[in-house]
């Protein structure tokens, strides 16, 4: 599972420890998620999405797809909006 957690954390200037504290998990958990060694549980994925005010699909996407989720593709935006 690829994700944008490191990028999103970086834009807010938070350390892994800061993010871990906000999510109520350990710093190792944040590191393991960022490096793709560990996929978070659904509740934790929701917490991460809520913290960055994004949807889960905007943060996490399947390995190797390299494709933005359907809902975020430009051609679907008009239909959704």
């Amino acid at each position: 599972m690829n994700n944008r957690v490191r990028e999103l954390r970086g834009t807010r200037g938070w350390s892994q420890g800061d993010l871990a504290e906000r999510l109520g998990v350990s710093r190792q958990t944040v590191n393991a998620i960022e490096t793709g060694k560990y996929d978070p549980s659904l509740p934790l994925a929701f917490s991460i999405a809520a913290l960055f005010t994004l949807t889960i699909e905007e943060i996490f996407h399947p390995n190797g797809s390299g494709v933005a989720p359907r809902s975020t593709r430009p051609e679907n935006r008009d239909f959704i909006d």
Partner: protein
Amino acid sequence: MASILASCAGAYTPKDRYNLRIFNVWIIAAALSFAIATLLIKARYVDTGVLGWGLALLTLGLSILAFRSYLVFLRGADELLRRIQLEGLALGFGAGAVFMLSYRLFERLGAPKLDSGDPFVVMAVFWAIGQFIAMRRYGAGAER
């Protein structure tokens, strides 16, 4: 080695650290009680009367408290820490089961007889090794 120790330090939330400390206190107390009771009973300082049974029951009580505090630690643990514990327990249980099954055959072939508590040592050692391996897998080289 330093990176592994650093990543181990980052594996616990303050709550995990608190629960782990409680578990450590009970497990050390249970181990000490077991060692002291064994020595006293073996050396016949204590007979099989009330004092002997009292020591045995004290060890049992402390062991139950250690077991209960481990469950509290596990239930309240951070989700990655729970996974690490699960992998450690799986390796410990598996190694213990393999050891118990296979060593019985070796005993029949002439290998030295073991104490009934020896498989527990194998389980505990492999539990620790499993935790170390899982900790490395998920955490080595963690940034701050």
